[in-house]
């Protein structure tokens, strides 16, 4: 029943930002591409919606820390209406006494801030940021490009390891780097700093979006990995109109390049013939054919649910079914009738990324609670006031507050229905310790629990990154050893979502690199 009209060069499943970007790059290279999404809008977790009438907010993902300029230029996003409302947003570690630490990422400025706040740490700050920056720069070389597929064979690791050119780092930095890899963030921080608040903020940065605490081994690596990704981006940014507007821009750019975007098209099955992926079937029975299929759905679900385990060897099925994706988060969005009053806040602070993480232990405790399927007693969180930069999202003078709470259990003890209000109250009470007039200003609010994030954005386990971004699930091991480099072991099936290298976040890199891998591996249509 091959309908000529439904025959494409490539099918991309999932119109999240990675799917949109992958489809755009393919179309740009002249491939006839269709992009299918099960929901009725595009963007996936990059979405802007109303909390209540007139109050708009980025429902899920709310900040861009590593969106590369290259993609912006390649796809001519500015032409299609991408405007950044804020660039290089500072990070503010909130202090109960109003002695907040505001870090801009600019070395000298930060050192002077530190000198004022915690003179003992100022000296070490320079050393710390220099070293982190060096490691991040080293890593970032490998994050903006496809990595060699190491396969399952240990004997083949030597070449790629040599290609890393670790020795170029210099003996002292290399030693420190190797020590760093398995370390916990807390032990690294203890080596450098004394100030509780600074350590708390850096610890939160290391573990946000992971199922880990700052005492977990490998959490230090998560920190530099994130810094490495940031090196590829343009600083902490926020687009006009929020994440959803950004997705709309991507959609327009994609359509301008010739991508056919089809929403409300739920792919039920990836069709396999003679060991090759040949098309997809939608729930309504429509069949699309293409020799290349890119899935931005999590690799585990793509292979085991959409394709079926029988089309993969058992080693691969084992690898896939053991992908961990347990780092859930919750999102709370509030509509406010005015700016909440934080002590000692200036313009810079209101426009920044606000962190509530008073100490390393506070961050660890929230992870311990999550491990036990409990709610944190004192939640740690990341907040943004998007309306501060983009007033059009709310009526004049009014604001929205976007709150991301990491390390929230997917299966909370007692069930989310029972404990939802308790959790919201905890979060708001915590913020009120810093901004006492918050409750008085709340007009409306919404909360997305991990199971809601899962069902709303088709993210298994409610995991924003599709799979934990721990050392064993990153780089050439992402999504699994033997399937890195975007091609699955099934001929014609590729991955292009956050589940593959370099991982989650609003970076667009998995999408771009997957499309490039497809174009390189399949020179002809």
């Amino acid at each position: 029943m091959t309908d000529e009209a439904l025959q494409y060069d490539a099918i991309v499943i999932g119109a999240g930002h990675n799917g949109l970007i992958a489809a755009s790059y393919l179309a740009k290279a002249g491939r006839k591409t269709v992009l299918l999404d099960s929901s009725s809008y595009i963007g996936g977790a990059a979405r802007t919606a109303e909390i209540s009438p007139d109050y708009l907010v980025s429902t899920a993902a709310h900040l861009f820390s590593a969106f590369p300029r290259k993609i912006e230029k390649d796809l001519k996003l500015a032409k299609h209406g991408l405007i950044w409302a804020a660039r290089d947003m500072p990070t503010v570690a909130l202090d109960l006494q109003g002695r907040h630490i505001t870090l801009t990422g600019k070395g000298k400025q930060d050192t002077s801030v530190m000198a004022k706040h915690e003179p003992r740490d100022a000296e070490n700050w320079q050393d710390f940021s220099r070293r982190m920056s060096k490691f991040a720069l080293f890593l970032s070389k490998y994050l903006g490009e496809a990595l060699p597929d190491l396969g399952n064979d240990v004997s083949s690791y030597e070449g790629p390891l040599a290609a890393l050119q670790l020795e170029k780092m210099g003996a002292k930095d290399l030693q420190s780097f190797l020590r760093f890899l398995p370390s916990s963030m807390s032990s690294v921080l203890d080596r450098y700093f004394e100030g509780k608040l600074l350590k708390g903020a850096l610890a939160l940065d290391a573990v946000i979006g992971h199922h880990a605490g700052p005492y977990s081994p490998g959490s230090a690596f998560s920190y530099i990995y994130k810094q490495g990704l940031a090196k590829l981006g343009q600083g902490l940014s926020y687009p006009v109109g929020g994440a959803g507007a950004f997705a709309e821009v991507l959609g327009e750019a994609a359509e301008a390049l010739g991508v056919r975007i089809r929403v409300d098209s739920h792919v039920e099955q990836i069709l396999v013939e003679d060991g090759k992926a040949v098309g997809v079937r939608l729930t309504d029975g429509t069949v699309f054919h293409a020799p290349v299929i890119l899935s931005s759905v999590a690799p585990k679900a793509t292979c085991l649910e959409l394709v079926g385990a029988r089309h993969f060897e058992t080693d691969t099925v084992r690898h896939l079914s053991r992908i961990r994706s347990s780092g859930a988060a919750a999102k709370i969005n509030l509509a406010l009738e005015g700016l909440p009053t934080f002590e000692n806040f200036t313009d810079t602070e209101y426009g920044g990324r606000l962190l509530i993480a008073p100490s390393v232990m506070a961050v660890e405790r929230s992870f311990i609670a999550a491990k036990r399927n409990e709610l944190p007693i004192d939640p740690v969180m990341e907040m943004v006031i998007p309306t501060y930069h983009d007033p059009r999202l709310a009526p004049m003078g009014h604001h929205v507050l976007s709150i991301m709470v990491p390390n929230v259990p997917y299966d909370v003890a007692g069930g989310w229905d029972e404990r939802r209000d308790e959790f919201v109250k905890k979060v708001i009470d915590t913020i009120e310790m810093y901004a006492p007039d918050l409750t008085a200003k709340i007009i409306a609010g919404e909360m997305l629990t991990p199971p809601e994030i899962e069902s709303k954005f088709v993210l298994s386990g409610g995991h924003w990154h599709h799979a934990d971004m721990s050392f064993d699930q990153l780089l050439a091991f992402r999504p699994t050893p033997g399937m890195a480099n975007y091609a699955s072991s099934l001929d014609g099936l590729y991955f292009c979502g956050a589940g593959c290298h370099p991982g989650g976040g609003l970076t667009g890199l998995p999408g771009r690199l997957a499309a490039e891998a497809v174009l390189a591996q399949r020179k002809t249509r």
Partner: protein
Amino acid sequence: MTEIDLFRKGRQVELERTNPLSGPAVEPDPAWFEQSSNEPPFARHVHTTPLHLVTSVESRTNDWTVWNGYTVPNVHTHLAAEYDALHSNAGLSDISPLVKMRISGKEAVAYLDHLLTMPVGRMKQHDTRRAFMCAGNGQLVTEGILFRLDETEFRLITRSKHLDWFLDAGIGFGASVDDISGTLAGLSLSGPRAPLVLAEAGLERSADLARGKACWEEPGRMPTYVSRTGLLGESQFELWIDPEDAPLLWNRLLAAGKHHAIRPVGEAARNVARLEQGVFLEGRDFASAFASSSTLVPATPYDLGLGTFVKLDRATFNGQAALRRLVTSGAGRAPVAFTIAGNEADQLGAIYAGGRKAGRITSHTWSPALHTHIALGLMDIQGLGTSGAYALDVLTFEGVAEKRTAHFAKRPLLAAGMANLTE
């Protein structure tokens, strides 16, 4: 019942018997096999098979060996006598330690096609087939025999246990996989007079079985599945039976075989016989892909000359991608058999071809039937065919290696027709 109790009972039984070949068959008391509920975990130092009691009755040497964790006789009475029984008369052995899997369900065929290197294809009911399964790197996980019991039910007998692998391989298939090792005992009857013994024991249909076929029988109303399978060649039969009936069948066969000089045969004699057949054995000549061994290395089907059991061009199966690569690259090893002059039984090591190390001897023995030392080994394909004679490393007790000349031999080293050589 504790181990000591079992042992005492065994002693009583032994006293009642005079000669295993002429004495009256002992009907075992079912109480011997009852499991005591108050037995502490790990109390059994010896993991026994359902046939342990009857084999221990026959043991005159107290020479045991461990196979898949079970204690089985290595030598019952005398190695030479048992070897002769296999070649000239009939030998009865306990093969219960083999792993038995039941694979059933609507998609059992699809599951097996995914698991094994060769699809089920046109296998009919009561057909059997050698079965090989590979890991993702193309190395053998284990090998065994596949039986088709009916349209949707199969039995897979394997040398080593890999239940987790079998279960993971079943993800996404409408098939159920059960380890039924504990519910099935195995007996092997081998030797030129094996068919006669079977006929005499009331298993007439089995006696006429073609090689590779199986059938149900009911000697003494004990349901028994008999197959003409096994690694010892043409005249081997394997009998699969409920553990409770197994000792009864054992005794029935011994009694029926009395006139054919049947003998219980231990693992030592069976190993010599399989070396003469030139059969490479997992755990002796190569390791499972999942095993860890200091002396053995894993092997692919091609390394063992089993390419005919691999069918590449079909739907995805385990090892497909790696085996394809192996076929293209042509790299690998080849199975070789040697005869070695002299009758000194030393430990054999590397194989040298034209002065260069080209492989390893994996197992070797003295073959009384061939009056020579025989050895199996794996050689690099490049090392093959450079010359007719090879040098073998001989590791002496002083640790000094010396070389010995070896000559290629065709497998099987002992042809089926030569079975009566020693008579």
